[in-house]
C-alpha cells in the first residue's frame, strides 16, 4: 500500500517547473511539428543545403520583379556537446550537428517579407531536416503595423527567467549547449502594433498552440515518477477560434522608466499529467491546463546601473481553488534584477526570482502522502558575469542559477572568441547539481556537458 501510495502520489504531483521535464520523456520531441525531414538515414549525409539555396533564390524572383530590395544572409554552424557520462541510450553527445541558416529579407514599403530557414544534419538522429525558424510579412502604416506568420516574440525583463514572456521555449536546446537564440521558439500568429501618442500597444493572437520543448529522454537523465507507465498520450489543443491564445502588452515611458502592462489568455506550455486510474495507473494523459497571466514591469537607470522589476499573477483557470492535484495552483511570480558595469567591459547582472503559491492550504490538504512537496515560496537567484577583452573579440562569461529553496544549481561558463568579422567559436559547459533528484536542476545532475559552437556568418 505504501508503494502504491507513493506511486499514486508521484504521478499526481508531477508538478511545477522542470520536474515536468519528465512528463515528455517518452515522447518524440515537438520538433516534428516544426521541421520537415528531408533526408532519411539512408541518404545521410548528402549535401542538401543547395536545395535551400535554390528555394531561396527562386523565392527571390517574384520580389525582384516587383523591384523590392532583397538581402540574403545567414551562417554555417557546427555545434557539438559532449556528455560527461554516457547518455541513457549510450550516446556520448547531447548535441551534434552542422547547420546552415538563410535569412531572406525582401522589402518594398510598406511591405516586408522575412524568412529565416535552417537546414541541418543531425548526427544523433542521423538525418537532415529543414526548419522554418521565422517567416512573416510586415505591413507598416504611420501609427500602426501588423506582422503575420511565424515570429519570435520576447516580452518581460528577466535574464533567462520568464514571467510575462509566455511564449514557447526550447529547453532542450538550452540544456544541450546550443546558441542562446535557440531557446526561443516562434509562434504562428498575428501581431498588431498600435502607437498612439500616450502609449504603445502590442496585441497578439496565436491560433496554433505551440508547447515548450523539453530535453529528450534518450540524451538526458531526468526524474520520471512513473517509469513503468509507458502508455502516455498527449492531448494538444485543436487549432480553432475558441482555443486561440491572446496576449496584450501596453507600454510607455513613466518618469524615465520603461513601464509595461501585460495580459495573456491561453495555456500552460508545459504538460501536466493525468492518470487514468489514480490507484493503478495504466495510462497517463499529458495536457496543457488553461492559464491567464496579468503582469507588469518597470525598468530604468538606478544605483549606477539598470534596475528591473517584474511581476505576474498566474491565474490557473482550471484550478483556482487549488483542490485539483492534476492542475497547478494559481501563483504570483516576482523578479528583481540589477545590472551594472563595474569596470571597462565587465558587467555584472544579479536577479532574485520567486513563485508564491496561492491556496497553499488546499494544496497541502489534497497533496498525497509520500512524495516531495512544493514549497509555498519557491526562490531562485542568478548571477551573470561578463568580461570582454581584446577589443571585445574575446568574451568570458558565467551564468549561474541557484535555488535557495532546493539548494540546487546550474552553472554555465563560456568563452567566445571572434576570430574575424565572419568566424566565431564558443566553448562552454553546463554543470548541474545539488538539490533533490526531482528538483529543477538537481534532477539534471548526471547531464553535465561541454559544448563547442563554431559559426561562419555571411
Amino acid at each position, binding site marked *: 500500500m505504501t508503494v502504491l501510495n507513493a506511486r499514486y502520489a508521484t504521478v499526481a504531483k508531477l508538478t511545477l517547473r522542470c520536474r515536468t521535464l519528465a512528463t515528455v520523456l517518452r515522447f518524440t520531441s515537438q520538433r516534428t511539428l516544426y521541421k520537415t525531414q528531408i533526408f532519411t538515414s539512408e541518404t545521410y549525409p548528402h549535401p542538401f543545403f543547395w536545395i535551400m539555396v535554390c528555394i531561396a533564390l527562386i523565392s527571390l524572383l517574384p520580389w525582384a520583379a516587383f523591384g523590392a*530590395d532583397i538581402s540574403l*544572409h545567414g*551562417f554555417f554552424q557546427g555545434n557539438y556537446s559532449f556528455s560527461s557520462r554516457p547518455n541513457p541510450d549510450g550516446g556520448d553527445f547531447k548535441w551534434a550537428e552542422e547547420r546552415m541558416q538563410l535569412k531572406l529579407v525582401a*522589402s518594398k*514599403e510598406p511591405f*516586408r517579407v522575412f524568412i529565416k530557414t535552417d537546414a541541418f544534419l543531425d548526427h544523433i538522429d542521423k538525418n537532415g531536416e529543414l526548419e522554418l525558424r521565422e517567416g512573416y510579412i*510586415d505591413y*507598416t502604416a504611420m501609427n500602426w*503595423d501588423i506582422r503575420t506568420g511565424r*515570429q*519570435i*516574440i*520576447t516580452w518581460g525583463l528577466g535574464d533567462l527567467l520568464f514571467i510575462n514572456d509566455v511564449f514557447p521555449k526550447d529547453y532542450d536546446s538550452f540544456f544541450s549547449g546550443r546558441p*542562446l*537564440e535557440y*531557446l*526561443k521558439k516562434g509562434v504562428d500568429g498575428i501581431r498588431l*502594433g498600435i*502607437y498612439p501618442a500616450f502609449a*504603445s500597444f502590442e496585441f497578439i493572437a496565436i491560433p496554433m498552440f505551440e508547447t515548450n520543448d523539453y530535453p529528450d529522454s534518450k540524451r538526458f537523465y531526468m526524474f520520471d515518477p512513473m517509469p513503468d507507465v509507458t502508455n502516455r498520450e498527449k492531448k494538444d489543443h485543436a487549432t480553432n477560434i475558441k482555443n486561440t491564445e491572446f496576449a496584450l502588452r501596453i*507600454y510607455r515611458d513613466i518618469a*524615465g522608466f*520603461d513601464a509595461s502592462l501585460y495580459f495573456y489568455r491561453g495555456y500552460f506550455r508545459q504538460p501536466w499529467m493525468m492518470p487514468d486510474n489514480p490507484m493503478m495507473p495504466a495510462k497517463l494523459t499529458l495536457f496543457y491546463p488553461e492559464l491567464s497571466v496579468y503582469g507588469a514591469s518597470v*525598468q*530604468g*537607470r538606478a544605483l*549606477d*546601473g*539598470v534596475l*528591473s522589476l517584474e511581476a505576474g499573477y498566474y491565474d490557473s483557470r482550471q484550478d483556482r481553488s487549488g483542490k485539483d492535484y492534476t492542475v497547478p495552483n494559481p501563483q504570483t511570480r516576482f523578479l528583481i534584477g540589477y*545590472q*551594472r*558595469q563595474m*569596470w*571597462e*567591459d565587465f*558587467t555584472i547582472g544579479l536577479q532574485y526570482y520567486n513563485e508564491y503559491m496561492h491556496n497553499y492550504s488546499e494544496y497541502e490538504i489534497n497533496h498525497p502522502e509520500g512524495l516531495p512537496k512544493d514549497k509555498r515560496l519557491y526562490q531562485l537567484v542568478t548571477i551573470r558575469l561578463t568580461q*570582454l577583452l581584446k*577589443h*571585445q*573579440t574575446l568574451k568570458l562569461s558565467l551564468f549561474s542559477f541557484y535555488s535557495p529553496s532546493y539548494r540546487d544549481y546550474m552553472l554555465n561558463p563560456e568563452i567566445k572568441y*571572434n576570430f*574575424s*568579422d*565572419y568566424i*566565431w567559436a564558443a566553448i562552454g559547459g553546463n554543470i548541474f547539481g545539488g538539490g533533490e533528484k526531482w528538483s529543477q536542476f538537481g534532477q539534471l545532475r548526471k547531464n553535465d556537458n561541454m559544448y563547442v559552437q563554431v*559559426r561562419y*556568418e*555571411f
Partner: protein
Amino acid sequence: MIRFLIVLLAGLLPFQAFALTAEEVMKRSQSAFLYQGKDFKARVMMKLISKGGQERIRELTMLRKNYGDDGGEQKFFIYFFQPADVKDMTFMVYKYPAKDDDRWLFVPAINMVRRIAAQDKTSSFVGSDFTYEDVSGRDIQDDTHSTVREEKLDGKDCYVIKSAPKAVDVDYSYKLSWIDKGNFLPLKEEYYDRKDALYKVFSAEEIKDVKGFPTVTKRTMKNLQTGHRTEVSYVKSDYNIGIDNSLFSERFLKQPPKKWVE
C-alpha cells in the same frame, strides 16, 4: 577714480570679448563637433586595425537629434550593417548633460529590446579605440580646462587646451586638444596616462563642408601602447533632415525605417 575705472573697463571690454577662456573654447568646440544642426545623419565606416594589420569592419548609420541648447540633451539612433553577426542590430542612446545616459539595444535574433548598463566614460564603442564618450561627447564641466599655448597645426591657427578630469573616472590623466581657431573643430587630441606618457592620439584627417557645417569626415584614434587603431570615415552625411521624435522608440528599434537608416 570712478571715471578712471570706467575708462579702464571700457578699454578691457573688446579684449575680453576676443580672448576666450579655455572653457569657452571647449564649449564652442563641443558645439561645432557634436551639436551642429538640429539633427544629423551619417553612414559611418569604421576600420578596426590591429598592430599586425588585421582589419575588422563596422558599418553603421548614425542618426542624432538635438533637444535644447548646445551641450544639452541629445538622442542617438544607430543601425548596424556590418559585420554579419551584428547586422540589423540597433542601438539607442538618450544623452543627458551631467547624468548617466539611457541606452537600449535591440537583438534581432530573439526580437528583444533591452536596456544596457554601461558607463560611457571608459567603455569602448563596438570594440573600437573610441569610447562612447568620444562618440557622443563629454560634459565640459567634468574637466578643468586651461589654455596651454596657441600654435599652428598643419597651417591652421589652433588653441591648445589641456583638459584634466576633476574625478578619476577615465583612463587618462589629461588630454591636450588642438582646436582650430577658425571653425572650432578638434584637429588633434593627445591622451596622457597616469605616468604622463602619451598613449592615445586622435586626429581629424578630412574636414568637409556639409550643408554649410564644417564636418570631420575622416578621423583616426590610435592607441600607441597597443598599436591598435580605428579609422572612421563618413561615407555620407547630412544635416537638418527632419528626423521624427518617434524614431527614438522601441517600435523603430525593432523595425528601423528604411528611409532613416539607408
